[in-house]
Structures are given as structure tokens and as C-alpha cells.
């Protein structure tokens, strides 16, 4: 019965992953991260992704702050933040977020305030979506580990 539950959760996880791939939310780099997870580093993906979330939120706050400045917005600084955001997003396979960063950066290159505002909104939305979906994924994974753990109790407590 418990094994059956673990299998269902495994199917859920794969279904969610397939969906995210299909939507272009994630790309093959995320698979690459999963390949780097093993017994030596069993939580690698969630560790890296959590670092990514932490850094991304700082970057988003900085971007919003820079754009909302009453004086002239520092587009160059925004570009630097976007480069960082782009880099880390592509490193974890967050394809849609990466693409929006690209568009956003193009708008900063042109000092296009309206374009930047639109891009920031899209970026925040997309990032939010990604975060929710990845949390969902990790939750299923945790449940699966729990269920598998009950069936195959860990030797060393």
C-alpha cells in the first residue's frame, strides 16, 4: 500500500516536471541539476534552488527600487542586476525567467522606462509562478521520501 503511494507520488512529480518542461518554464539545465544529486549530495537541487530564490528576491527588490526612483533611474545598474539574474536563472534551468531578463535588459539598454516597468511586472509574475511550482515539486519529493522511508526504514537513526 505504501509502495503504491510512493509510485503515485513519483508519477505526480514526473507529471509536474513534464508540464513545466512543456510550458517552457524549465529547460534541460534543470535535468542537469537533478543528475548532480546523489547519495553524496541528496538535497543538491533544493539547496541550489533555495540559494537562487534568496538571491533572486534581493535582485528583484533592487530592480524595483531602481525603477521607482523619482530621480533618473540608473539603467546601467539595472543591467548589472539583470545580468546576474539571467546568469543564475539559466544555471538552474529557469528558461522563461531568463528570457524575460533578456527582454528587460534590452529595455534598460534603451532607457525605456515603460518597457522596463512592463518587463519588471512580467518578471515578478513569472518568478512567482516558478517559485510556487518548484515548491510544489519539492513537496512531492519530500512526501515521496517520507513514504519510501516508512517502507524502508533508515538503518542509522
Amino acid at each position, binding site marked *: 500500500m505504501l509502495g503504491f503511494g510512493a509510485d503515485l507520488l513519483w508519477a505526480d512529480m514526473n507529471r509536474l516536471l513534464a508540464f513545466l518542461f512543456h510550458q517552457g518554464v524549465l529547460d*534541460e539545465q534543470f535535468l542537469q541539476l537533478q*543528475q548532480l544529486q546523489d547519495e553524496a549530495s541528496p538535497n543538491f537541487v533544493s539547496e*541550489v534552488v533555495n*540559494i*537562487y530564490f534568496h538571491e533572486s528576491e534581493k535582485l528583484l527588490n533592487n530592480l524595483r527600487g531602481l525603477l521607482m526612483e523619482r530621480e533618473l533611474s540608473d539603467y546601467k545598474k539595472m543591467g548589472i542586476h539583470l545580468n546576474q539574474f*539571467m*546568469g543564475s536563472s539559466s544555471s538552474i534551468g529557469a528558461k522563461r525567467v531568463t528570457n524575460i531578463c533578456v527582454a528587460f535588459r534590452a529595455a534598460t539598454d534603451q532607457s525605456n522606462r515603460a518597457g522596463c516597468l512592463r518587463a519588471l511586472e512580467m518578471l515578478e509574475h513569472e518568478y512567482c509562478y516558478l517559485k510556487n511550482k518548484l515548491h510544489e515539486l519539492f513537496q512531492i519529493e519530500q512526501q515521496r521520501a517520507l513514504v519510501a522511508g516508512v517502507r524502508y526504514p533508515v538503518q542509522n537513526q
Partner: protein
Amino acid sequence: MDTDAVVSFDHVSPEDSHEVHVLAVDDSLVDRKVIERLLKISACKVTAVDSGIRALQFLGLDEQRRTSESDGFVPSLKVDLIITDYCMPEMTGYELLKKIKESSMFREIPVVIMSSENVLPRIDRCLEEGAEDFIVKPVKLSDVKRLKDYMTTREVKVGSHDRGRGVDDVGVEINNKRKLEEEEETSDMSSSPPSISTLSSSPSVSSPSSSPTSSPTVLASPIRRLKMSSTD
């Protein structure tokens, strides 16, 4: 997990000379974690630092230790490869590359540049300055595997890192590769040289990537393998 530490390294004894030791330089913590894991899973020892300055400090080449080469300073861990991000604040990967190649003690160490942007002039500049390879991010296992093959080839060819002659062999090899590339692509500026791993990138956004496929599979495309073997 030491998220606050800017340097992380494995404890090694000096006798562990057969395992490759890589110095990884990247200001992004996410990228540092990923490259560290990629290297460890490929059986490399890793020291990861967050800036060019720290990399130089680790090697003993920083401003405070300008005399490192004359006073016989030897870094505690021999470095077999340096892999560095290009875009970093204060000191770029290119500047770090130059400093390493200017040093008589460390110029033999192969330096690989990583960048999220597939910019041909940038790639050329780095290769001309003596970079071993240029990897377009995101870095994959296949990229790291290829780097390891370099190391093995080098050791087989050169015998030991202490022999300065090895540098010339590798330098000539790189020049030959580049000559071949120049002959192959005379006026076609949009395609990048096939012998470097720009083909592994799919999310490259600025310039048209010569990557023949953007399929989600991580397997190297047969075309890439063909291209790579044709310039060997």
C-alpha cells in the same frame, strides 16, 4: 551549508597528486555551487572562490604577496586547472587570465573562461590571451568531462606540470586549432569555432548560436560530435 563562506575547499594532503585540483572562480553563489558539484562528481578536488582577487590570493599572487615568486612561496595545494567566470565585478575573468599568464609560476596552469554570453570577439580575446577553452553557460557535465580529458591529455603529453616545454606544445595546438577555424569560416562571423563548447549552449540569447539543435535532450548532437572530430 556554508552560504556565507566565500572560499570552500576540500582538505587534501600534498601526496594526493593524481586527483585533479580545480580552482573555480565565480561571483555568483548559485553558479559556484553548481560548478563545484559538477567538478566533484567528475572526481575533481575543488576550491571555489568568489572573485579574481581571492583567486590570486589563493595562488599567492595578490598585491600583498607580490614577491611570491622570488621568496619561494608555494601554495599549499597544487592547482591543475582554473575555471573562471568572465563577468565579475572589480576583476573580470579576462583580467584574471592575464595576471595568471603573466606569472612565470602559474602561466602553465590551463585557464578556462565561462560566460553566459556567446560573444565571438570576447572568445577570441580570451583564446589569444592563452585561455585553454571558453565555455558558454550554463555549464554542463559534458563540458566538465571534456575539461578532464584535457588534463589527462596534458599529463600524458607533458609528463609533469613542472616541465615548461609542455606549454609550447599546448600553445601550438591551440594556434593550429584556431588556424583551422579561420580557414573554415572566413567570412561567416555568425558561427563560432566548433572546437570550443559554444555549441553546448541553447539559452544563448545575444548572437545567433551555431548550436545545430535546441532540443531538450542533453545528449551531444551527432553534428556537434562530427564537428569536433573534424578539427581534432
